[in-house]
């Protein structure tokens, strides 16, 4: 456990200058959450680069390179001028402010008990030992990315095309430890969930009184701490949701740092799972559909495309196929249009957290129309991402019902956190309006 904790702490420390280089005014929960997310991105980038340069991963080579990377980032921080700080949480003197620590304690309790569950034994999930953990372990043995393993037709089950951010972070924990030990490999995934909770808490506090922000963070714990222990869904939820929430800040409050964080986090989401690549398209289309952004804003997201590019190039160079794209995806999708009823019924049957979804829909209906208009970026991004998932099921080369049963309860949860944030935030603002608006920022009206 100690080595996993050391690796996580090192990752977080490495991420601090990266966070400050992007946004010198990042503070408290957002600073810690972003630092872990960026630190994991740095580990991915460093181990990937060392591997391409044929430098064997050891505790020495990885640590020295990460420290050098961190030093460069500190120089960037020192050279960077501070921007006008985004409005932080005003001092909350409302009658419920004193309840905020209680809600925060409840969140801590939820995290601790989830950690007890996730670390009750070695990571047990099939997809951990057959995909994400397997690659981490194979690459550790090889001292770098084992391209021969990925290219072997016998290893198609390990999905060689999947992005490597999580396996390389597992490998980093093992490199720090000096050997593979899956007893505590659930810890990095738990910290991804905690990072998102901290970011949500911090962003919500900029627009809501403390108690309501704390309640929103508590609710987020339920969706950010993925029960699929050891899989890449927890990091994807963290990166994807944080990206959407920061881009929302960029759009609604014209925060340059919101676009910068959003772009990098979106790129790291694409480095985590193929669904992250789809999310880039969803976000761009949503920005344009929402008519909340100009092309100039969309172009600010260029890091989202640059960050996953090396992996995409490597994937093509090493001929690592995506199973879902094998054969004719489009003809399969067209053939299945006749089965739409069965597919939709199956999606509804296997929808996770149906009560939560129902309440989010009710909440959306209750939100005042002007607010809904302002928030249409998030609503559109989530809806478009859901359409990609739906399209993937229609075009899957696998048995579609089996595919839905085995993946939809997991991937549908990718969509929950951003939707939960925007619905709870706008509901809270609706009943706050006219009472204690002193802490809430003015929301621009969008046409």
């Amino acid at each position: 456990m100690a080595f996993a904790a050391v690796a996580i702490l090192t990752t977080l420390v490495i991420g601090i200058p990266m966070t400050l280089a992007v946004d010198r005014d990042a503070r408290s929960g957002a600073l810690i959450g972003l630092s872990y997310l960026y630190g994991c991105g740095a580990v991915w980038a460093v181990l990937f680069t060392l591997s391409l340069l044929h430098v064997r991963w050891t505790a020495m080579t990885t640590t020295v390179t990460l420290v050098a990377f961190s030093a460069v980032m500190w120089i960037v921080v020192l050279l960077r001028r501070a921007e006008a700080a985004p409005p932080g949480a005003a001092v909350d003197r409302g009658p419920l402010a004193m309840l905020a620590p209680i809600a925060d304690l409840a969140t801590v309790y939820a995290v601790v008990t989830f950690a007890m569950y996730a670390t009750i034994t070695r990571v047990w999930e099939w997809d951990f030992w057959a995909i994400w953990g397997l690659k981490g372990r194979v690459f550790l043995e090889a001292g770098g990315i084992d391209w021969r393993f990925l290219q072997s037709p016998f290893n198609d089950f390990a999905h060689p095309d999947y992005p490597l951010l999580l396996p390389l972070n597992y490998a980093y924990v093992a490199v720090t430890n000096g050997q593979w030990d899956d007893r505590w490999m659930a810890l990095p995934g738990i910290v991804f969930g905690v990072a998102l909770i901290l970011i949500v808490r911090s962003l919500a506090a900029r627009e809501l009184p403390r108690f309501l922000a704390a309640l929103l963070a508590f609710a987020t714990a339920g969706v950010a701490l993925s029960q699929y222990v050891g899989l890449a869904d927890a990091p994807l939820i963290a990166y994807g949701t944080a990206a959407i929430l920061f881009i929302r800040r960029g759009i609604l409050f014209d925060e340059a740092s919101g676009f910068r964080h959003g772009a990098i986090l979106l790129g790291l989401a694409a480095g985590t799972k193929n669904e992250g690549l789809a999310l880039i398209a969803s976000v761009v289309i949503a920005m344009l559909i929402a008519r909340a952004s100009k092309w100039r804003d969309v172009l600010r997201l260029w890091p989202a495309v640059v960050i996953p590019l090396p992996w995409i190039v490597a994937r093509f160079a090493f001929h690592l196929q995506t199973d879902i794209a094998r054969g004719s995806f489009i003809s399969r999708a067209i053939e299945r249009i006749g089965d739409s009823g069965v597919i939709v019924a199956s999606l509804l049957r296997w929808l996770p957290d149906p009560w939560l979804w129902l309440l989010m829909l009710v909440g959306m209906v209750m939100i005042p129309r002007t607010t809904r208009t302002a928030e249409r970026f998030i609503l559109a991004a989530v809806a478009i991402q859901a359409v990609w998932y739906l399209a993937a099921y229609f075009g899957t080369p696998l048995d579609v019902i089996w595919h839905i049963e085995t993946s939809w309860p997991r991937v549908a949860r990718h969509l929950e956190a951003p939707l939960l944030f925007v619905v709870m935030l706008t509901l809270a603002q609706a009943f706050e309006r006219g009472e204690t608006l002193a802490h809430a920022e003015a929301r621009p009206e969008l046409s």
Partner: protein
Amino acid sequence: MRPRTALTIACFAALVIASIRIPPLTLPFIDREPIRRSMTVLPDAGIWWPDYPRFLQAVRARTEQGDSIALFVPTFTWEGGYSYAYYRASYFLAGREVLPVIVPGDRRVPANVTRARYVAIWHGRPPAGVHVVFEGFGGTLVRR
């Protein structure tokens, strides 16, 4: 308080409640040992527990990085258990090259036996006259 405001507050509160995952919250107050035991067995449930993972660990201890190992288990159908045995062996024997003798569609690949430096046989009898490296946990490791 206007009815709409009350409904908004109720919806917000309901969302907080609906997002709670009850089972982990009770963990500090219950006996966790049965859960730990069932989660430990889960990846190898059925005929595989406890010997198959132990056999694979023993094979790992007796082979070197880069060695190739062909795998035999008491099923010759991919969906009937061979795929699981192969995936599991790939994890435990990471760093070695695990070679399946069955592939999807239940096609046999005898060439992988010829290619392999070792043959790992679980719940099967090795042919006579081969060099047995290890026997135990229901399996035999043979050097070719």
